[in-house]
C-alpha cells in the first residue's frame, strides 16, 4: 500500500470503502466466540426471535465498529492514523444482511506540520439503509513533511482540529 499524502486528498472525495458481503450466522458466531460474548441473540434463532422478539439473529454492534475502523485505517494507508471516531448505531442488522461502508472527506486542515482530514463514515446494508453512521478525524503526512508520529500523542497545536457536528 502506498502512502497517502494530505496534499492529494480533496474535500468531497471518497477515500475509503469496505464490503464484507453477506454476513451469515456463522460469521456472527465466529465473532461472538472470538470475543467470548455468548449472548444468545447472536446465534440462537429461537431465542432471538421468540424470547427477544428480534427480526433475526443480530449482527453484533461490537463487530461493526471494527469494520468502520478497518475501513478508515485502510483508506488512510500505512502513513496515516485514525485519530478520532464518533459513531452511532442507526439500525439493526441481522444474519443475511450485507455490510458495506464508505468514508468521505468533509474537511481538511493543517496543524503542527501534519494534515488532518475530517470524514463522514457509514455502514449500509444491501438495501442501502444506513445501520451505523459517524464522523472521524484522520491524520496524514504532508508531502515532503514529517511522518505522523507514533504513538500519536495529543499536542496543543492540534487543539484547533475539531470533529464536525454529526448530522
Amino acid at each position, binding site marked *: 500500500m502506498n502512502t497517502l499524502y494530505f496534499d492529494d486528498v480533496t474535500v468531497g472525495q471518497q477515500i475509503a470503502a469496505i464490503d*464484507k458481503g453477506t454476513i451469515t450466522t456463522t*460469521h456472527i458466531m*465466529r*465473532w461472538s*466466540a*472470538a*470475543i*467470548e*460474548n*455468548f*449472548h*444468545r*441473540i447472536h446465534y*440462537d434463532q429461537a*431465542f432471538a426471535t421468540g*424470547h*427477544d422478539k428480534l427480526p433475526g439473529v443480530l449482527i453484533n*454492534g*461490537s*463487530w461493526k*465498529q*471494527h*469494520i468502520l*475502523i*478497518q475501513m478508515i*485505517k*485502510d483508506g488512510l494507508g*500505512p502513513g496515516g*492514523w*485514525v*485519530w*478520532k*471516531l*464518533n*459513531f*452511532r*448505531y442507526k439500525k439493526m442488522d441481522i444474519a443475511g444482511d450485507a455490510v458495506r461502508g464508505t468514508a468521505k472527506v468533509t474537511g481538511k486542515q493543517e496543524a503542527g506540520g501534519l494534515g488532518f482530514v475530517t470524514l463522514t463514515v457509514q455502514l449500509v446494508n444491501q438495501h442501502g439503509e444506513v445501520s451505523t453512521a*459517524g464522523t472521524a478525524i484522520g491524520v496524514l503526512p504532508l508531502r515532503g513533511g514529517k*511522518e*505522523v508520529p*507514533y*504513538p*500519536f*500523542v*495529543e499536542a496543543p497545536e492540534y487543539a484547533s482540529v475539531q470533529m464536525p457536528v454529526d448530522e
Partner: protein
Amino acid sequence: MSDSQANYDRYIGMTGEPKVAHMPLERDTLRRFTQAIMDPDPLYHDDQAAAASRFGQVVAPPLYPAHAYRTPAGAADPFEVFSQNPDSDGTAGNEGMLYGLPEIQSPYKRLLNGGNELTFYRALAVGERCVVTPRYADVKLKEGKNGFILLVVVETTFRTEKGEMLLVNRQTLIWR
C-alpha cells in the same frame, strides 16, 4: 414520577480502580480476532511487515483492548447459570462496559446506546497487557416530552502497563 439531578451528582467523576487484563495479548487470540473481523492486515500477524512499520512489532487492531477482559482461567464458570435458568440470555460472564464501576441507581429500565467517541493513541502489541480505568464522565438527567431520560457518559481509558495511552472510549448510555 419526580426525579432530580441531585440524585446523580455523586456519580459524576467517579473513577474505578484500574483493571489489568488477565492475559497479555497472544498471537492466537489475535488471529481469531482478526479473522473474525476479516482484516488480513499483515501488521496483525507478519513479523517482518510489522518490524518495517511504525509499530516495530505485531500489534492488535486499534479497538482490540475493549475485548481484552474475559473470564480468567480458574474462575467460576459463568455458564453455571444455565443449571438454574435454562432460558438465561448467555451474558453471564460478560465484562460489560462498567469495568467495576458501581451501577447507577435509577428507576429507568430501558437502555439505549447513545453512541461512542473514540480517540486512538497507540496499538497494543503482542505480549503486552492493557490496563483499563473506567470513569463516569457525566451523568445528566433531562426531562423530555415522554418523561425523564438519564444520559450517562462512561469513559474508559486503556493504557499499557507502563502507563502509555492506548485509547479512550466515551460511550453514552441513555436510560429511560
